[in-house]
């Protein structure tokens, strides 16, 4: 492993262990989204507690609209870890419910799930390079009683001296992958031989084109066959594919070194209004 990748791994393991060893395990949860960052986070949790099993629960906030390959992958992973699947009973539809869909099915669902299981500390795989408001985020980030983020008055932080405390009025979000970039994630997946959802690799797929990009065709679409892959995975109606020839990890890494665009371009969720991610995060989104 290159020295810098080893340093990223070391820092991630340190924060995972420090938070888990200094808090009640029953109040800790790891958000698992089935994507590449979640796969890396899961791998780091295995390493952090080796040779013991992972001592905390994982949770997938389901919307019912993930790719079928993601569900197959999740069900396989669920055999290895203690995984809770939570879905907001409101069951909104991304095609007809617009921006409310993300709020209700993701942000509100997340808050409902935290409350239902009484979790006070939630790990997530978010990275600072993903989006501009995330570049301002702490590794250990405090949320108020309503799970809200206050970006203008954050707790001062000097890694690796993490403040692991919370009170009755606060909870914590913890981001061990804060300093990783998209390429770091792939270099690490390659080095550690981590399994990811096959949708990340180029394959001929049935897609439809609309004004915001290429999307997986549903049964009712005519569509066309294109060789595509996904840089990020989410709900299929909101997650665009990219034309790609990258069939292997090495080819993905090579493609990313030369790409002209960031990965968020494939996500509809960040683009509905300016500063929409900041607003979502303030309201409790990851």
């Amino acid at each position, binding site marked *: 492993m*290159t*020295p*810098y*990748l*080893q*340093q*990223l*791994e*070391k820092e991630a*393991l*340190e924060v995972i*262990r*420090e938070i888990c*060893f*200094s808090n009640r395990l029953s109040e800790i949860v790891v958000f698992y989204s089935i994507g590449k960052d979640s796969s890396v986070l899961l791998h780091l949790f295995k*390493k*952090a507690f*080796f*040779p*013991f099993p992972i001592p905390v629960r994982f949770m997938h906030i389901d919307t019912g609209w993930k790719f079928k390959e993601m569900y197959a992958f999740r069900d396989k992973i669920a055999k290895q870890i203690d995984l809770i699947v939570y879905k907001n009973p409101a069951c909104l539809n991304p095609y007809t419910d617009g921006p409310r869909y993300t709020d209700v099915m993701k942000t509100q669902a997340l808050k409902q799930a935290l409350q239902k299981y009484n979790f006070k500390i939630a790990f997530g795989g978010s990275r*600072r*390079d993903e*989006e*501009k*408001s*995330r*570049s*301002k985020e702490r590794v250990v980030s*405090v949320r108020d009683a309503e799970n809200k983020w206050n*970006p*203008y008055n*954050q*707790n*001062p*932080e*000097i*890694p*690796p*001296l993490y*403040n692991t*405390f*919370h*009170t009755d009025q*606060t909870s914590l979000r913890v981001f061990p992958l*804060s*300093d990783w*970039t998209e390429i770091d994630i792939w270099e690490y997946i390659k080095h550690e031989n981590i399994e990811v959802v096959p949708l990340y690799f180029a394959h001929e797929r049935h897609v439809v084109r609309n004004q915001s990009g290429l999307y997986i065709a549903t049964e009712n679409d005519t569509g066309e066959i294109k060789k595509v892959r996904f840089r990020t995975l989410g709900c299929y109606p909101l997650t665009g594919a990219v034309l790609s020839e990258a069939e292997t990890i090495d080819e993905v890494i090579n493609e990313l070194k030369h*790409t*002209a*665009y*960031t990965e*968020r*371009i494939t996500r509809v969720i960040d683009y509905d209004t*300016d*500063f929409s991610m*900041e607003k979502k995060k303030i309201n409790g989104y990851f």
Partner: protein
Amino acid sequence: MKRMFKVICCGNVDDGKSTLLGRLLYETGSIKQDQLEEALASSIKKEGSAQPDFAMFLDGLAMERTKKITVDVAHRYFTYKQIRFHVLDCPGHEEYTKNMATAAACADSALIVVDATRPIRAQTIRHIEICALFRLKQVCVCLTKYDLLADKSVLKQKEEEIQNLLKDKGFSYTIFPISAVTGYNIPNVLSVLEKFAEQSANMAEKNQSVIFHIQAMKQLDGKRYIYGKNLMNHLIDSESGKTFTLYPSKQKLTIAPESASLPLGCIQTIEPVDVNVGDCLANCPLMATNTFSHRTLFFEEPTNRLLLKHGTKVVKVIQISDTQMQTDAPLFLNTIEDIKENGFGILIDESSKKTIGCCIFTHNA
């Protein structure tokens, strides 16, 4: 790719920190097409300029954009000459000095941005002092807005003023004019950073100190697994067969060869000894003490009882004066002059659990 190198970018508000960093990101190919289009659209809309607003790449919060100031640290990453840089863009406003100080505490070196067209501000002097307080080794001062400077002859005097501020503070430094807007001297900034990174990596490599703050010990099949945080460049994991001192008991422990094949930060020792969270293993002398000289930066006024966290140990503060502190249990520390990495802790309000200060351990004040 080599190890990561952490640089802060600091200086007074409006002197051009975010613009410089945005330019560095742009020059190193770290800005993608969609981000560039967004920055171009913003500058055309606001100023009718066809040049991207480089600061746009850094200021990530809505209020930062509307007020055109940086409130909190932005973390950005770029690669130059096989070195991975982690840059921390600091706020210049006095109100947000706490965010600059926390960034300085974990950085290797500093880019200090000074507006060449204006007199030196109090906040610039304050930032230089904070860099010195946290023992940053290397400083690059960029005299920005060179393109706007009508009389270039004032530069020499400005450089002297800055030299006076930097001297006797333990920095190795360099000062030169730049323009982030026109790109003047930007390649120089990058080569200085490259040189700093090389020097810093060499220094870290030469330093043989290993300090391991213990997070937990677990037993399985009669074996003890010790988990902790490596504070220095050299890791305890690769010190098989070497002897370390366990604090506070001062027992000598030998690192078992199995440690090399365990994940990072997990070791076994040959001697079957029980250790506790907050204990420390080191191959260099540490001070085990509950009374020490300090200089504390308070981020807000303390109103309740205080906890002090250092390494993995959390203790209660019993007494605190401007220069001395006493805690209810010993810490295993170094002064910041001796080993920077082990030379400070954070102060936590016992009731709100907020981090309200950074306590720096010093030689007798």
